[in-house]
């Protein structure tokens, strides 16, 4: 949900100045309140996926983290359950001011948007049955479906060209999209399988390179 289907790369790779990439440079403490406000401002500009906007704020505007650090946090957040952008903001907030900082960053991400969603719900209740609104919404839904499909296609196109990846991809798509099996059931089988296979392949590759060296 954090990839922006409108751009080829979820995270813009604009060059940053050298000062932003100084890892371990002395930083001032940001504090929970400022974290909350900054994340709120950022999330309110985030249309169609917040992650690229988080990158822009954290790396390019505020320079709270270096580009490399952001990539590391992103890599880690991708193995955790839930939205990557939430984990990235929470980890940065936590580094700055402990659990209060982490919580402030997460609340900044979702608090005001939740109020907006309530407003959306209220408007839907008031006007959802008006024919013209219904028609507009059904057109918007068809457009939203295309955003999701594109998001999926972009990740799919970037898959490594090996049968294992494509079999797992097909299994996930068929189980969830066609057979409509429960998510938990599918995940409980496919995740250990996928991770196990990747682990075995990595081990085999290591053994292979060790043999080649000796």
């Amino acid at each position, binding site marked *: 949900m954090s990839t922006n289907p409108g751009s080829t790369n979820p995270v813009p790779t604009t060059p940053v100045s050298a000062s932003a990439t100084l890892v371990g440079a002395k930083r001032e403490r940001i504090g929970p309140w400022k974290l909350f406000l900054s994340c709120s401002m950022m999330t309110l500009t985030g249309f169609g996926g*917040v992650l690229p906007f988080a990158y822009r704020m954290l790396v390019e505007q505020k320079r709270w983290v270096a580009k490399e650090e952001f990539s590391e946090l992103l890599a880690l957040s991708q193995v955790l359950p*839930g939205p990557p952008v939430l984990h990235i903001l929470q980890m940065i907030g936590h580094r700055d001011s402990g659990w209060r900082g982490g919580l402030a960053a997460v609340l900044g991400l979702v608090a005001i948007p939740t109020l907006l969603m*309530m407003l959306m719900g209220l408007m839907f209740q008031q006007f959802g049955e008006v024919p013209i609104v219904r028609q507009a919404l059904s057109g918007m839904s068809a457009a939203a479906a295309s955003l999701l499909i594109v998001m999926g296609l972009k990740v799919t196109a970037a898959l490594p060209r090996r049968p294992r990846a494509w079999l797992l991809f097909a299994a996930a*798509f068929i189980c969830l999209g066609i057979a409509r099996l429960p998510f938990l059931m599918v995940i409980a089988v496919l995740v250990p399988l*996928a991770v196990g296979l990747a682990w075995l392949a990595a081990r085999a590759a290591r053994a292979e390179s060790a043999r080649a060296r000796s």
Partner: protein
Amino acid sequence: MEWAWVDALLNSPLWLLCTHVALLSGTAVGGGMIAVMPDVQRFVVDTHHWITNEQFASAFAMAQASPGPNFLYVSIIGWQIAGWTGALFASIAVVAPPTLVCYAVIRLGWDGSRAGGTLQKAIREGLVPLSAGLMLASGWVLASAVDHNWRAALMTALFVLILLRTRLHPLWLILAGAVAGMAGVV
């Protein structure tokens, strides 16, 4: 008798929705709440009949069209099912489990030094194909829920092409979809 309210709470749509959403968001590896969308749809539309397919799709479209994280579509569904409290608790149910997991990861010290370890690499490598399949499944499920006629299906296909070929911001396409809908095209 005095425990009747507990019974009522445990059987209320709000409780069922929130526990289901919390369970999903706490396990939603590789794609977050977008990947679990088909499951949420099945739960609220097919299993419990709380809302219709059309309401579900509208909630999703509205979340896409407003600023903030896309996963908050769950919050609009919460609103549709149980009003203000529904929206609030659905948001909490989406956010709390991953936040707690992340907190645990930080406390265990896995968030810095061990980044890039073999296991983490294996997890990431294993999850990428799954995440691609899950996201595409979500798109497929939403498209089959909203594209009732060939014109709507054609529009979805056309928008997919536009998004793949150009760098147009997705919001414009949502707007174009709204206009096409109002004009009675789809």
